[in-house]
């Protein structure tokens, strides 16, 4: 069943089609949700809310782009709402309180990690850094767009992204070094 047929069947309320849509995109979308949250349970909550929204607003999908991209956008929005809604993320989302973090910038870091390991490192970033890094580096939003989404200036978004990226690079390097030492030893 192609995407168009799948969407039409879902719009007709067919449970089999709804399940197929979920099965087709759930793993990929949980990966997205996982990067924005701090626990798997939270990620699954976001996934759940996100899929409910997908079925609710599926009639607005105009087939103008890939269905996966449309669902991904919903997941990202749901994740951002989740972060704003929950106090344990809200305090961490303040974008000016992370000045104490001054990671050593190592620009020669290479990404030699598995996707899961990298996702784990991204999740260890402070929530503000994590969110902006995900939105810019992974989702491809511009800093202006991020600024409007999060209610911050684009300059703040840029500086936060630079810090997040530097921190992440340092962690990646450290992890790579440990790996190399391990294999060398």
């Amino acid at each position: 069943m192609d995407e168009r047929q799948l969407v039409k069947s879902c719009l007709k309320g067919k449970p089999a089609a709804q399940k197929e849509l979920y099965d087709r995109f759930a793993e990929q979308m949980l990966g997205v949700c996982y990067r924005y949250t701090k626990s798997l349970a939270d990620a699954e909550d976001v996934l759940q809310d996100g899929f409910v929204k997908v079925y609710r607003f599926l009639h607005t999908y105009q087939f103008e782009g890939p269905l996966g991209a449309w669902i991904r956008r919903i997941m990202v929005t749901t994740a951002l709402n989740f972060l704003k809604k929950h106090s344990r993320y809200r305090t961490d989302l303040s974008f000016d309180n992370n000045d104490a973090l001054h990671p050593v910038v190592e620009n020669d870091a290479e990404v030699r990690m598995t996707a899961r390991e990298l996702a784990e490192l991204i999740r260890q970033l402070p929530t503000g850094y994590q969110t902006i890094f995900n939105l810019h580096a992974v989702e491809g939003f511009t800093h202006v767009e991020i600024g409007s989404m999060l209610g911050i200036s684009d300059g703040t978004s840029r500086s936060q992204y630079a810090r997040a990226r530097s921190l992440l690079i340092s962690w990646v390097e450290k992890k790579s070094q440990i790996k190399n030492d391990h294999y060398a030893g």
Partner: protein
Amino acid sequence: MTTMRDNEFDKGVQEKMGEFRLPPSAPVWMEVERRIRERKRRRILIFWFCLAGLLMAGFGGWWFWESNDRPALSITKEGSNSSVIRSTEKNTKDPREEIALPAKDDKEQKINVADPSSSPSVGKDLSKINRGETTTGINAPLLVKSSSLKQLNKKTADKELTSKAQLTAGSGKTTRQQTSPKNKVDKLVPDNDSQVATQKSTTEFPVASTSENKSTTEPPVPATATLAVAVPVDISTAKPADTVQAVGNDKQQTTPSLRKSKKSKWQTGIVFAYGESRLIRGGLSLFSEKSFDALQSGVSSGNGNFNNQSFADSVPLKGSGIHTGLFVKRQLGKKTSFSAGLNWSYYSGKQRVGTRVDSIRQLSSPFNTDTRNGFYRSGNASRFTNRYYYLQLPLLLHWQVNKGSNWPAIEWENGFVPSFLIASRALVYDPASRIFFRDKKVYNSFSLVYQTGLTATLASRTKHPLTAGVYYNYHISRLQKTNPPDFNHQSSYGIQFRWLLKK
């Protein structure tokens, strides 16, 4: 160089995250599916609720319009020769007020029936009479006599209307006739020099029971008022044959064209009530509940010690209660009336809960071993407002406490209210797991409610009287059917307003 490496890093991250996948656990889909179905069910419920509301509104509107569409026949001759043919609706005034007094002068007034414009008010309505009530023909000479009879029903005290038109033809001279002073005269008594009315044509309305017409075999009915007034008309163009024909046809066509002007016994209105709602223990006592302050301070309200924490966990606090809807009311006796309605009701109660946990947990209660995705721990960290939405059908008896009409009528109402829980957003406490979770299955979908109240009618003389008062209702049925807590009966009390749309 740096920029290039930056770009490589970004590109590498994007690629790796693009291929990153995690399999979700099974309950996620179950929960998604449940929420989709629930939403669908809710939509269906809202649809039916709206449809029912529209139907009720439509029916009410039709009823209102229909009742207003029954015109009271009123033919009034304004001027010196006051002659009245009046059909009133359930008029409780002294019947004597309805009687047209004879004209001060005895001059006869001639009204050309064929030309209603000769006397606008009379002619217009007379032509109505002629159209359906008699076969006299538009040019026939008429001496119209109308009597309006109000009949007091022994049981309901409703007065019914009797109207009668008497057609009399004469030689061209008419005589006005009067009612007897005591209003019980049901017979036309011609004046001394009557040159009229050798033949009579009587039109009887369904409720009419006059015995004037000799051919009528119905026994006389006690009447509180009888109106018999003759309206002199121009008979200059009349032919005796026409009159005879009219009389002959009249007996065959006794079906009235004038609709019986009978007022509906049901009054319609809207009700709005606002107050406080709370969960209480069984029994009808309003004071069996514990206040939250008492619970927090650890002081029992009288039945011994209790664990402060456990009560704070599970006892809902008060919230607001709103009831609004439509009702119909009917007078049963002099002081009693009955009302039925359809209300949308909202009950709420705040609950002290702990922090929310967004993970899956299996309940350890013997009543429930389901898994819950998302729950609240016990504690006092935050408040959650439990909300319950009901569709209620109040059936109430009203008894007027005071006498007289000078003071506002004070009514005591009592009755039962079948209630249907249509939606809820509330937490259930599981004492074994010490967590709060949402579960709609534990609630009784039907409950019987006892309601009482005291109301006073304000501005009763206006077209749409307003009634204000207080109410108290108590759900006899339990709210939670499985694993019922101590505080398991909804109650609500506050102020209520009833506004009559149709008196």
